C-alpha cells in the first residue's frame, strides 16, 4: 500500500503580533486533522522541518511545542487512553519536507506509526520577515498528513536526495560573536550572486537523474519544482513549506490531460536537492 497525503494546508501570518512558527505550524496541522477527520491521538509521529523560528529557539524541538498545541500525547500517564506520540525537528533547508516524507515511509512500513504529520514553518526570529530587507523568506507554514492508501496505484515513489558539487550558495546563521543581547531577534541569511540560477540547474540535473533512475515517463509527469510556489501570495519566498504550497497549487488547477503523476523537486542550501514522484488518490 502506498503512502498518500490525506490532507495538506498552509497558514500565513496575519494579525498584529509577531509571527510564531509554532502557532503557524499548529494552525496548518490542525486544519489537516480536521479535513481528514482524525483525532490528534491517531498521529504517531510529528516531524517539524522548519528552519527559522521565533527567538532562534534551539531547545526543545519546536515539534514538541507544536505537538502540545495540536494536543498529541500531552501526558502519557494522565491520559486515560494513552497513545505514545513522538515528535522531533528535522532540518535540511529547503529539502526538509521530502526528507520527512522518506522517514515517514520507513515509519509506516515498520509499523512504527499509522499516521505521520509533517509541519514546515519558518518565521523571522524577530517576528516579522517584512521588516528585515536582508531576510528573503516568508513567514509561512505548511502541513501534510500522511497515511496509507488502499489504492495500490496511489502514493509516493522513492525519495532520492542529491548532494551538489561546489560550495553552498546559501548560509543561514546567527552570528553569536556580534549579536549583543539582541540574539533572539537577529538572523543572517547570506546568498551568493547567481544562487537562483545554480539552484535551478541543480534541481534540473537531479530531476533528470531521478527520472532516469526510477523509470519515470516525463511526458506523463507534472513537475512541482522549487520555484512552483513563488508568487506574491505572501511577502518573501516560501522556504521549507514551498513543496506543500506547490502541491496544493498543482491539485487546485485542472489536471493536464496527459499527466497522471507529480514529481516534487526541492533544492537549496548544501547544495542539496531531493525528488519524489507522487500519484494523488483519484487524480
Amino acid at each position, binding site marked *: 500500500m502506498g503512502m498518500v497525503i490525506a490532507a495538506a494546508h498552509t497558514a500565513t501570518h496575519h494579525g498584529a503580533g509577531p509571527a510564531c512558527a509554532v502557532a503557524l505550524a499548529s494552525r496548518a496541522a490542525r486544519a489537516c486533522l480536521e479535513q481528514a477527520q482524525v483525532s490528534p491521538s491517531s498521529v504517531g509521529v510529528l516531524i517539524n522541518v522548519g528552519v527559522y523560528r521565533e527567538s532562534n529557539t534551539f*531547545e526543545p524541538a519546536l515539534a514538541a511545542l507544536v505537538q502540545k498545541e495540536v494536543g498529541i500525547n500531552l501526558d502519557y500517564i494522565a491520559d486515560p487512553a494513552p497513545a505514545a506520540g513522538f515528535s522531533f525537528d528535522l532540518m535540511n533547508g529547503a529539502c526538509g519536507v521530502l526528507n520527512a516524507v522518506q522517514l515517514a515511509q520507513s515509519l509506516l512500513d515498520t509499523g512504527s506509526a499509522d499516521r505521520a504529520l509533517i509541519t514546515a514553518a519558518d518565521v523571522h526570529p524577530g517576528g516579522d520577515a517584512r521588516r528585515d530587507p536582508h531576510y528573503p523568506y516568508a513567514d509561512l507554514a505548511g502541513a501534510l498528513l500522511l497515511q496509507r492508501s488502499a489504492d495500490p496505484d496511489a502514493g509516493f515513489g522513492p525519495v532520492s536526495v542529491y548532494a551538489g558539487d561546489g560550495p553552498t550558495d546559501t548560509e543561514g546563521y546567527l552570528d553569536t560573536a556580534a549579536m549583543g543581547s539582541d540574539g533572539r531577534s537577529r538572523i543572517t541569511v547570506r546568498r551568493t550572486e547567481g544562487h537562483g540560477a545554480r539552484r535551478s540547474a541543480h534541481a534540473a540535473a537531479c530531476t533528470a537523474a531521478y527520472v532516469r533512475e526510477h523509470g519515470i515517463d516525463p511526458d506523463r509527469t507534472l513537475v512541482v519544482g522549487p520555484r512552483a510556489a513563488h508568487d506574491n501570495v505572501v511577502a518573501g519566498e516560501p522556504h521549507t513549506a514551498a513543496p506543500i504550497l506547490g502541491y496544493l497549487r498543482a491539485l487546485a488547477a485542472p489536471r493536464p490531460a496527459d499527466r497522471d503523476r507529480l514529481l516534487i523537486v526541492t533544492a537549496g542550501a548544501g547544495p542539496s536537492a531531493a525528488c519524489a514522484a507522487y500519484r494523488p488518490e483519484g487524480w
Partner: protein
Amino acid sequence: MNTSTPNRHSRLEALGIHVPETVVTTRELTEGISAVRDADLQRITGVAERRVYDPDPAAAENSFSMALSAARDCLAASRYGAADLDVVISASITRFTDGGRFTFEPSFASLIARELGARRAVHFDVSNACAGMMTGVYLLDRMIRSGAVRNGLVVSGEQATAVAETAAREVTDSYDPQFASLSVGDSAAAVVLDASTDEADRIHYVELMTCSEYAHLCMGMPSDRSQGIALYTDNKKMHNRDRLKLWPRFHRDLLAKQGREFTDEAFDYVIQHQVGTRFIDYVNQTAETEFGAPMPTSLAVVEKYGNTATTAHFLTLREHLRAGTARPGSRFLMVPAASGVVTGALSATITNMGV
C-alpha cells in the same frame, strides 16, 4: 524497495567520540561566580569536572569540528568507509561553526557528509534536545528495518559549555533557571548502524515518545541580558517524580504488549541520561518502584564529563567499554530524558561493536 520484514533488526556497528583536551573543574568554574559556591554545584550535580572547547579562534574547536572528529574516530573503528554510507544524520543542539556562527542552514549533516566524503548519503539534521542522538538512532533503525537503506552514521558535536558561559555571567543563585547550565560539558560522539545478522549484536528495540504537556519546562535561546546562548530549565517540574515515571510506565506497557516484564529483559547495564549523579539515582529508584524489580548496574561518566547533552549515552558507553567496566556481550538499556519531554528505551546487545 520495501523489503521490510518483522524480524529485521539493526545493530550498533561502531562508536567513536571526541572530547576536548581542556579540563575545567567545578571549583575553577565557580571561582568567578559569586552567587554559586563550588560545593553547592558539586553537591547538587555530582559533576567534578568537564571538558571545555578551546576558545582560541586558531584552534577552531567547535560543535562542527568536534562532530567531524568523532565521525572520523567512529569510521576508523567501522568496517565501512565514508563513501559506503547511505545516510548521515547530525543531531547537535548547539550548531556552532567557525567564528561563533550558530548555523540554521545548510544542515550540519550535509557539511559533515561532504567533509567525510559521503557523497551519495542521504543527509539531514535532527534536533530533539538531549534525545537528538537517540532520535537519529531510532530513525536510522527504522530506515534499515524498512529496507530503505543498508547503513548510516549518526553524529553529534556539542559545544554545550556556551550555555555555561552565559549562566556564569547571569545566574543569581542555585534556584536560578540557568543553574543547570553550569553542569554541562563539551564532547562529540558518532555511531554507525547497519543490519544485524545475529543476536550478539542487535538493537532489540528502540522506542521513543514525547509528552508535550511539559514542552516549555526547558527552553534554549539567546540571552536577552548579555551576548551568549542560554538554557532556562524549571528543574523542579522537569525532574519531579511524575515526569520520572513516564519512562517506566511507557516501557512497562511496551513490554506488556509482548507478554513480557522488565526482569525478562535481563539487562546487564542501564545508561541514564547524564544529568547529574542525584538525578541518575533518583530515576533508577523511581524505576525500581514502578517495575517492582531491581535496576541493572548503572553506568555513568557525569562526574568526569558533566552533562554532555545529545552525546551522553554514547560517551558513557564508549568510556565503560574502553575501560573494561562494561563487558562486551552484554545487554544494555539506554534511557533518554530530554526537553519535550522525550523519553523511551533502547535495548541492545553489544559484542563486536568497533570502539
